[in-house]
């Protein structure tokens, strides 16, 4: 492990729950919107559902691309 890697994944301070859960909460909101919207209607509602539920998947792809090393 080198210093660069350490800074890459670690924060310089102990985070508060608000900081730790900020992104997960937004992903949870997106998932909820996605799960509900396709129930409300077809067409645009389905499209919104796909985009919203894609958010958690996209977050994983983003994390994987930015993985250490």
């Amino acid at each position: 492990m080198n210093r660069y890697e350490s800074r890459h994944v670690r924060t310089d301070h102990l985070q508060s729950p608000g900081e730790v859960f900020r992104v997960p909460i937004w992903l949870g909101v997106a998932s909820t919107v996605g799960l509900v919207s396709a129930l409300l209607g077809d067409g645009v509602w389905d499209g919104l559902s796909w985009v919203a539920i894609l958010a958690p998947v996209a977050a994983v792809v983003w994390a994987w691309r930015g993985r250490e090393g």
Partner: protein
Amino acid sequence: MSTQAWSWIHKWSSLVCTVFMLLLCLTGLPLIFQEEIEHLAGVVEAPPMPAGTPNASMDRIAQAALERRPGDVIRYMFWEQNEHPDITYVSMASAVDAPPEENNAVIVDSRTAKVLDEPATNEGFMYVMLKLHTDMFAGLPGMLFLGAMGLLLVVAIVSGVVLYYPFTRRLKFGALRTQRSTRVKWLDWHNLLGIVTVVWLLVVGITGSINTLNRIVLSLWQMDQMAEMTAPYRGLPPVTQPAHLEESIRAARAAVPDMTVSLVAFPGTMFSSPHHYTFFMKGNTPVTSRLLKPALVDATTGKLTDSRDMPWYVKTLFLSQPLHFGDYGGLPLKLLWAVLDIFAIVVLGSGVYLWLRKPKAATVPKTRVDGVPEPANALRHTNTDEVAQ
């Protein structure tokens, strides 16, 4: 509650349900695409006929099925208006009160009343997947057991969210430390995939558990609303020769004009009374197509008895179905369902791995370290140790 307590809850709730959850995630994967797989496998299609060809009388369609399987009785007939508009599916059994699993299917062309196929319903890959997924071939006890495992999954998810904080408060969101030990790598994957699938897995887990209660919900509805609607018929001998199917379906359509008939349950079946056809009507929006509305028609006269909205507990069950199956937003939603299902499999697998490869450090913290204010430090120590590796 201390982190150690949450850790204990997470460990045990997960360990108990993991094997079953892996089974459910793996068998659920092909089930997401059941419709597509059936289509590829070549289900029977109605032959093309000029548009607007009128449908045969329901009585003739029923007659065709009864002639094909003399000795059997019809229990249900249903329609898939969008996928197969010209087909009537008939579900028959040796007796009206035969076990619910008995399902001798006859597929009839709705326009000509000709039998198109008699597909086997209790064999093949998809059937095995479905049985493993719903009751593990163990009937109602198996189904309820899986429902209980679903509730343990909920406990595991909630405790996992609580533990996410002590494990990641030194890490940026999405940190994947792949260059250190294999354990750190899988810990990060477990945390990342676990936290991004929380809402989806909670919804699929809870609605799955609700779905395991379907027989119970059905009995409740029978004793409650169905008993009220059919009160005047109490004590009358059951109808053994139901007639006037065409007249009855017209009466149901007239009673609920804005909906289409999706299923008819014959007298004496689980979904009806001993004296009625129960027509289940569906609307044409994603929600109303799930919230079936029953219309009861007297099977000796063909006249409507009653039609009411389902009580809240049946509506809850009905809405739990799409939210569990993921079949309400087209193929893209099914694909996302599959991706999230695979994420869940990785969370389960990595969870087992992390438990098997538990580092020594994780057992140390039972001895309190002086000068550390909270007793929660088990995980922080573990975590810091791992970071330092």
